[in-house]
């Protein structure tokens, strides 16, 4: 399906550009000039929009910050570490339990999905927080003896007042004989979450990778699953599938992840990566430094799962290839049953997406499996390489938006009148007020998993539930 460019009736390059122009009308000249390159009709071949630029001030962007990228995406999901939000209370509080990266273990014992903070007060700003940090690391180690390590995630003030968390971490690590990872992910750094991912990747590179090895013997089938954060249990759907085709998933980055296994990932034979945006850096590092090849894949919807399984099998011997064909043959009818149930209710429905760094392209074909067409897509914090990968998935001339403002999204939805919008919590209720069905596509809207074969039936059910809920018939009042 992704081999030929799709078309959508009524959508042309001109109609899309007209819609974009109309959305831009509201901006003051300077802002318009800044925003214009971020919006374009899909050309089907390249990154047609500018990206990874500073957000235009005041436009109501959905973006988060580097800290959010570090805590919420990369570090937070590692289950056996204490992750300290270093600075004032808020950042850790807002990111506490709000990203649905599920974890195995017992909370507070060997799993730490909690809010650890140094809770900076005025005096910490004035006198610096290093001493407090040193003390709290001792306390954390004492109260959580099974934590395999501690990450220290800097919030804005830390970088601004000139604290040196790196040296505190180094010293404490030695004193406590425990990995303590300083991560300079202050929220003001960069233009979005994206830099937080990159900084965190670099921190893993500098402090973690290569510090452990797997105790059991290596095999040719050892892989690592990169860029799956176990939202709503995705990893628990993906990992068994990879095992079913005969691979050994030695480490998961970082959903339900374990520090030491991550630290030993340089010993695997292949890295397969789902969320390219947040972790391509480390794949490249491991490729360069350890010669580990890596492969992008897509486990949304049976078509892409099938393609991806075969691509993965392509990196292995016949045993794996045969396993893959057997697995596809096993699941295809189950997936067809899901399609048979929902496709008649969803055929031809239009979807607009606006999410983070992966799903705006990865899910396009999952909707297509259900007969739906994505008529607009964009990212909060993608880069050019993301948009390159997007253009080939999206139908011709559909609108692509980067770091869209709420105003733009509203305009596009008003024009395109999609049957479903898939975006985040900040957008959800806005579009529902407009009477437009909506699913949160960062958090699976408290459902999931959506990845792999176990996820697709849930994805299909949820999409149907949103689009076809009878409540939408009640929106228009008879009086």
């Amino acid at each position: 399906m992704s081999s030929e460019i799709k078309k959508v009736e009524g959508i042309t390059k001109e109609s899309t550009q007209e819609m974009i122009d109309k959305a831009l009308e509201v901006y003051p000249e300077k802002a318009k000039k800044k925003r214009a390159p971020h919006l374009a009709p899909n050309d089907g071949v390249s990154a047609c929009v500018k990206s990874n630029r500073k957000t235009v001030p005041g436009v109501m962007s959905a973006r988060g910050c580097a800290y959010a990228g570090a805590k919420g995406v990369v570090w937070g999901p590692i289950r056996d570490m204490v992750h300290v939000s270093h600075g004032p209370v808020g950042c850790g509080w807002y990111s506490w339990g709000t990203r649905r990266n599920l974890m195995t273990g017992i909370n507070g014992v060997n799993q730490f999905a909690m809010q650890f903070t140094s809770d900076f007060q005025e005096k910490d700003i004035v006198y610096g927080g290093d001493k407090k940090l040193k003390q709290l690391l001792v306390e954390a180690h004492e109260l959580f003896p099974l934590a395999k390590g501690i990450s220290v995630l800097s919030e804005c003030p830390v970088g601004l007042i000139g604290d040196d968390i790196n040296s505190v971490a180094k010293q404490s690590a030695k004193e406590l004989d425990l990995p303590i990872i300083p991560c300079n992910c202050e929220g003001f750094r960069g233009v979005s979450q994206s830099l937080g991912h990159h900084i965190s990747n670099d921190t893993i590179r500098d402090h973690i990778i290569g510090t452990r090895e797997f105790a059991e013997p290596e095999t040719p089938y050892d892989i690592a699953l990169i860029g799956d954060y176990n939202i709503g249990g995705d990893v628990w759907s993906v990992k068994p599938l990879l095992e079913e085709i005969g691979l050994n998933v030695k480490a998961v980055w970082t959903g339900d992840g374990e520090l030491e296994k991550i630290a030993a990932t340089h010993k695997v034979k292949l890295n397969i990566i789902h969320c390219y945006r947040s972790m391509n850096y480390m794949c490249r590092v491991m490729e360069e430094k350890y010669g580990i090849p890596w492969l992008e894949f897509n486990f949304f919807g049976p078509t892409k799962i099938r393609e991806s399984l075969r691509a993965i099998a392509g990196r292995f011997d016949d045993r794996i290839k045969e396993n893959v064909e057997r697995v596809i043959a096993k699941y295809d009818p189950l997936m067809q049953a899901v399609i048979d149930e929902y496709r008649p209710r969803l055929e031809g429905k239009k979807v607009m997406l606006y999410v983070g760094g992966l799903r705006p392209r990865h899910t396009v074909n999952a909707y297509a499996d259900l007969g739906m067409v994505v008529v607009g897509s964009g990212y909060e914090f993608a880069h050019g390489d993301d948009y390159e990968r997007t253009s080939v998935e999206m139908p011709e001339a559909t609108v692509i938006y980067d770091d869209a403002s709420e105003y733009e999204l509203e305009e596009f939805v008003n024009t395109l009148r999609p049957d479903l919008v898939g975006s985040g919590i900040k957008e959800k209720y806005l579009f529902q007020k407009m009477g437009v069905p909506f699913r949160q596509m960062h958090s699976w809207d408290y459902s999931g998993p959506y990845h792999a074969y176990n996820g697709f039936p849930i994805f299909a059910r949820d999409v149907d539930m949103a689009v076809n809920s009878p409540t939408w018939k009640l929106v228009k009042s008879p009086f």
Partner: protein
Amino acid sequence: MSADAAVKYVTEIPEDEVKRVAEWINTEEYKEKNFARQALVINPPHACQPLGAELAAHGFEGTLPFVHGSQGCASYYRSTLNRHFREPAPAVSDSMTEDGAVFGGQNNLHEALENAYTMYKPKMMAIFTSCMPEIIGDDLTAFIKNAKNKECVPADFPLPFANTPSFNGSHIHGYDAMLLSILQTLTEGKQVEGRCTGKLNLIPGFDANTGNYREYKRILKEFGIPYTLLADISETFDSPLDGTYRTYPGGTSLDEAADSVNGKATLTLGPYATAKTFTWIKDNFSGKHVSLPIPFGVVKTDALLLKLSELFGKPVPESLKAERGRAVDAITDAHQYIHGKKFALYGDPDYLMGYVSFLLEVGARPYHILCSKGTKKVEKELQALLDSSQDGKDGKIYINKDLWHMRSLLMTDPVDAMIGDTHGKFAARDANIPLFRFGFPNFDRVNLHRYPLVGYQGVINMMTTICNKFIEVRDETCEERYFEMMR
């Protein structure tokens, strides 16, 4: 960690060890270690100032909350409000980045003001700060003056602003600071000698229960007392779904707010969440100034009605007298299901006072009372409440402790239930007790903010929720032979 050390292998924690620690964290010994913490804060239930500032801003007509600082902050505040209310929460930021550290945030502020003003057509933008400008020392007064000179917004466009450093106080203090600035800005020069609007200015304080606002309005309507709610989020965060998105579906009229300075009386019902605002009002607003605790429970509601009656020379309406009687009826009918039950409580000071007051009057026992951001004054007032009743004698107050402390309390000295917000759910699960989500935020139950906790209706709501849950637990956990038709 250095890569050139001897090979370290990946290890697994033995199950026995996990089990040992799982048991250990429930012990008295652990509790003592836990309470000895000096630096590490774990699971504090309070947020930072700007969140409260945003809530206050949403309470005014056509007002766009405006975060001066990093854009990620704005996203965090917004999504918190989205999740709690399951409603939109439009707000902008001026997206300061690294160069702000060098040059200050004036350019961002100006550009953002112009853009937001043009795009979202607000009647007011309420500016508040997150960490970055607070640390680099941005001079907001000057920046805003310059913005008007540069015509980023019209000269008469209201731009209240508040310093809301996250490293100081909590969301309730940000609420206070923002509300204060908004009132200062709107009322400036509006005081008219001899003029009296005849109205009550009612200040609920930081309160994320839209039902409470509606309940205040209903009570005042029953009384026939004209009022201005400062600030009214009830329509903002409980707006109709009718196919039209409105950026500003509600909020207190700016003209009314401006005229509030000429009010007949000003009444705060959130004294801890509006301390600065109220102090300023006492010096600057006409009319009488009264501070009352949030009206949770019959007694505190009585106090509110008596005060309203006194201030406006109107008798308590018959309809409210009847409501009172019905509330007393409801708690009398149900008292046996709550009598003597021990509760763990945590939350903002105003709400905490309300919980304690309500529980004591229905015969329950406030037991572990935790305020993660409190003062000596909070402690003293809570203690006085406890001292007022036999059922308060075992209650113990924990100021500036967190929910990991609370967990130790629950495990070593068990209670029957906890009142708080969603964040307590892990501790409640470990302690196997119900958690009543009366506080903010609520991320995991629907529509609770539509049910008032204040007033007599609030009494019925709290009592019904609590007692029916206790009965439900009994029905769900009792042996077959104790499973009965009647309860």
